[in-house]
């Protein structure tokens, strides 16, 4: 392996997976690589892949924790289908991840972790390094543990602590491999450990540099790589996960509306981080209420909305199931409320830590009676910010509960995100009713939206409730004709939300025969696949409506303009059903239920299959 080092080679995009035991610090390693790459100007996208077990026994397959990212000198849509590089800190990690690796991909392993015991735990019956099973890859087995211990020996740290530094050694080696600068991680280490445990700070920095120098000096890699800056817009950037972005979006929406934010929520994977995030914003006046269950979560939000809050409740599938009765109440009360549902694998408890898009039906239809409600979906971690603001905009303008769908993939994945200037964003107009003169709780404006008259406002006392109400006055009414009127009004109001939906964007070739339609979190994979094929000269369009209810006014006509529609969904065909019900069109369905996001390559294959069929 002692070839002569060559000059760094330029690559466009690289996908790396860091994998190790839950205790190996892989999330941190991945995050450091991400941040360094971000600062160095690459576009990128990440996806952490936690073990779904509580804390599976060390060394087992169930205990493997992974972090994958794609970084690039071009626009990036997903965390990458198949890694070019796999860093595997133990046999279990190798076993779990190697199948995903690209042919001829690079594997870096900690040779020291491949003890008999660990091999056993991972279920290796023969040595993968010698049995030929890794022949398709370029394997670099480095004694990472030993080298780390050597590098920091001088500090005299206890063995257990010293061993923990090995992920920085690995990171250093990969930094060299992709010509990353060390300074960002070094200053992170300093700020994290410097003050409290300077020796740990020192150790980690030593390990990082040792790993870097190992790459530089040993020449075990034939060469290293550079990835140029991506042509991104100027401005201030940060990294956000989808869950953070929802939190940021909610705070921003409340600010734009000039009202205060209230979150009522009950923890549930993978939505809990929104609750965590917002409970840190007390200094901005944000009130979070950790309720006893999901029902109380939404009900407390209803109570707060009733009292004038920008009210939010957050959950995932099984939690949404519990909220549906109260969603009906919010519908008939006609009060603003945003319900964020971070979709996960179902049915029932299902696959709690895995992603899916199978709550569209639930969001559209899970209420007793005819109870129409706007439903939106976010398309990327950063888009969760914009989608949340949009959801509040609808809720506050139309005095209605709104469902915002994200998913486990968006929620946990992250990407660079350009920080907007709030002062440049469009305000959300809110007007509280204050004039008792002629006040009627169910009178309506031109949007068919009713007044928001909150407790504490002199002279505005009135009663609302879940029984059908008389048009205009809001009194209880069992009048048959009135029920029809109110049902029609409620439906018409939600239909009117179409007024604020911009013209549907048809990305790519408007004159293509095939359009790929998607919704929500599959955006990245679809856009990547479409770009990939268009770059090869294939004519294709990509349509990705944000609003799933009401559907955009122009959507039916646009879809009708294509010979064929391909609709990939991480479910059994829910949007396909909705589109057919609305437009009578049959689409080509591509459904996957594996608890994992789509890969670009899967979509590419599906598109090719359609094109072939179309001749």
């Amino acid at each position: 392996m002692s070839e002569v080092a060559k000059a760094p080679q330029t690559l466009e995009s690289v996908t790396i997976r860091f994998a190790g035991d839950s205790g190996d610090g892989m999330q941190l390693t991945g995050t450091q690589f991400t941040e360094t790459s971000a600062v160095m100007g690459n576009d990128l996208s990440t996806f952490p892949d936690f073990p779904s077990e509580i804390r599976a026994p060390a060394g087992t397959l169930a205990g493997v924790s992974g972090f994958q990212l794609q970084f690039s000198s071009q626009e990036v849509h997903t965390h990458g289908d198949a890694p070019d590089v796999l860093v595997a800190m133990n046999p279990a990690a190798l076993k779990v991840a190697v199948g995903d690796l690209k042919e001829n991909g690079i594997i870096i392993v900690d040779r020291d972790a491949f003890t008999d015991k660990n091999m056993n735990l991972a279920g290796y019956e023969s040595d993968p390094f010698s049995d030929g099973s890794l022949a398709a890859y370029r394997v670099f087995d480095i004694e990472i543990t030993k080298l780390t211990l050597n590098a920091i020996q001088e500090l005299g740290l206890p063995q257990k602590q010293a061993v923990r530094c090995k992920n920085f050694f690995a990171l250093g080696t990969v930094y060299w491999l992709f010509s990353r600068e060390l300074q960002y991680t070094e200053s992170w280490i300093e700020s994290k450990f410097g003050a409290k445990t300077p020796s740990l700070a020192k150790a980690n920095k030593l390990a990082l540099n040792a790993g870097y120098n190992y790459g530089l000096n040993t020449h075990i890699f034939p060469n290293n790589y550079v990835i140029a800056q991506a042509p991104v817009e100027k401005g201030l950037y940060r990294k956000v996960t989808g869950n953070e972005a929802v939190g940021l979006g909610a705070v921003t929406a409340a600010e734009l509306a000039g009202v205060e934010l209230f979150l009522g929520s009950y923890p549930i994977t993978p939505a809990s981080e929104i609750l965590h995030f917002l409970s840190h914003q007390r200094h901005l006046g944000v009130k979070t209420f950790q309720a006893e269950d999901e029902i109380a979560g939404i009900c407390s939000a209803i109570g707060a909305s009733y009292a004038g809050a920008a009210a939010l409740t957050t959950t995932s599938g099984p939690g949404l199931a519990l909220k549906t009765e109260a969603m009906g109440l919010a519908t008939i009360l006609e009060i603003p409320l945003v319900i964020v549902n971070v979709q996960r694998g179902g049915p029932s408890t299902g696959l709690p830590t895995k992603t899916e898009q199978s709550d569209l039906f639930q969001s559209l239809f899970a209420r007793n009676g005819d109870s129409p409600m706007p439903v939106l979906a976010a398309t990327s971690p950063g888009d969760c910010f914009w989608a949340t603001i949009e959801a509040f905009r609808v809720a506050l303008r139309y005095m209605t509960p709104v469902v915002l769908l994200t998913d486990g993939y968006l929620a946990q994945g992250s990407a660079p995100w350009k920080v907007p200037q709030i002062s440049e964003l469009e305000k959300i107009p809110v007007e509280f009713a204050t004039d008792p003169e002629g006040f009627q709780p169910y009178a309506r404006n031109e949007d068919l939206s009713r007044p928001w008259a909150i407790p504490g406002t002199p002279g505005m006392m009135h009663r609302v409730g879940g029984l059908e109400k008389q048009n205009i006055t809001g009194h209880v009414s069992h009048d048959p004709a009135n029920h029809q009127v109110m049902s029609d009004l409620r439906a018409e109001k939600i239909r009117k939300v179409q007024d604020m939906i911009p013209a549907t964007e048809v990305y790519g070739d408007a004159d293509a025969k095939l359009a790929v339609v998607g919704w929500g979190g599959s955006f990245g994979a679809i856009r990547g696949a479409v770009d990939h094929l268009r770059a090869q000269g294939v004519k294709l369009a990509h349509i990705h409506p944000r609003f799933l209810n009401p559907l955009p006014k122009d959507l039916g006509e646009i879809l009708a303009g294509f010979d064929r529609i391909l609709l990939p969904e991480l479910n059994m065909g829910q949007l396909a059903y909705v589109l057919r019900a609305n437009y009578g069109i049959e689409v080509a369905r591509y459904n996957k239920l594996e608890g994992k996001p789509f890969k670009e390559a899967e979509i590419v294959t599906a598109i090719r299959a359609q094109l072939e069929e179309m001749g």
Partner: protein
Amino acid sequence: MSNYPIFEPTDPSGLTRKSFVSNQEVRWCPGCGDYAVLASVQKVLPELGIPQEDFVFISGIGCSSRFPYYMETFGMHSIHGRAPAIASGTKAFRPNLNVWVMTGDGDGLSIGGNHLIHAIRRNIGLKIILFNNRIYGLTKGQYSPTSEMGKKSKSSPMGTVDYPFNPISVALGTGGTFVARTMDANPKHMQEVLKAAALHEGTAFVEVLQNCVIFNDGAFTDVTSRQSRGENTLDLVDGKPLLFGNKNEKGIILDKKMRPQVVKVDEVGLENILVHDADNEAMAFMLSHMTIPNHPVPMGVFRSVARPSYEQLLEDQINTAKAKKPNASVQSLLESGYTWRVE
């Protein structure tokens, strides 16, 4: 920039009982105990010195839960069992509102049990009035979680096999800081209790023994009728001995096994009668288990202790956080975390 309207609160001094009567026809059965509660609440509110627009009445579903319609206040007739959860949002968001939860034994203790006990646990400043008629009135006569064991009802033709909740014990067991019982038949008592409840910081839980003339008539007659009230009930007064009987000639002492015994005061001496201590949860709990025929049924405030309320603690936390970051803004939050600038 806030969009909230800013107002001078209205002057509460001119409020009367009538101020709180809404324009909706009251639709309980003639003779229903709910009327008495309505009248008492309408009597008490003007005495509290609170602007009318600051009152909010939130209920679930049930006969008793129609209460808000009849009040000229803000009100919500919500869904079955959820009033404490909704009201918690209202109160946590706007601590200055005076928020009442009107609920039934089914609404509050059956489907809504969890929200009720969590509201109590949090000591959030709701006034929870539980109309206990030991029956589901609105759905026409099924037994409820407070129906006595063996009760025959539409859904228990051979009698229930369910032991009932004791609402006072439930409230004490879940940490109630203000726990009281009153009855529809004694408006004066009710008004005193309601007033004390209204003035309590934190959750005030009041059980009202309420007669459902249609589906469970006379459920509490032994306790509520004028004739037997003196002998069968005991008025709780903090710091005062536990006396009852038409001439207060009987009292309660504690035996060595820590059980309450009825004694004649002149036989044991007034100084040996147990003194009610509203700050002693074990005593309150013991009292909550006293019932006829062996003991009188205690009425009034079982427990009342001062504890900071949930909403106050939340408000304090927010103020502390704001004080620590006086320059915080949403823009600065957006710009926080790991950032970098692309030039």
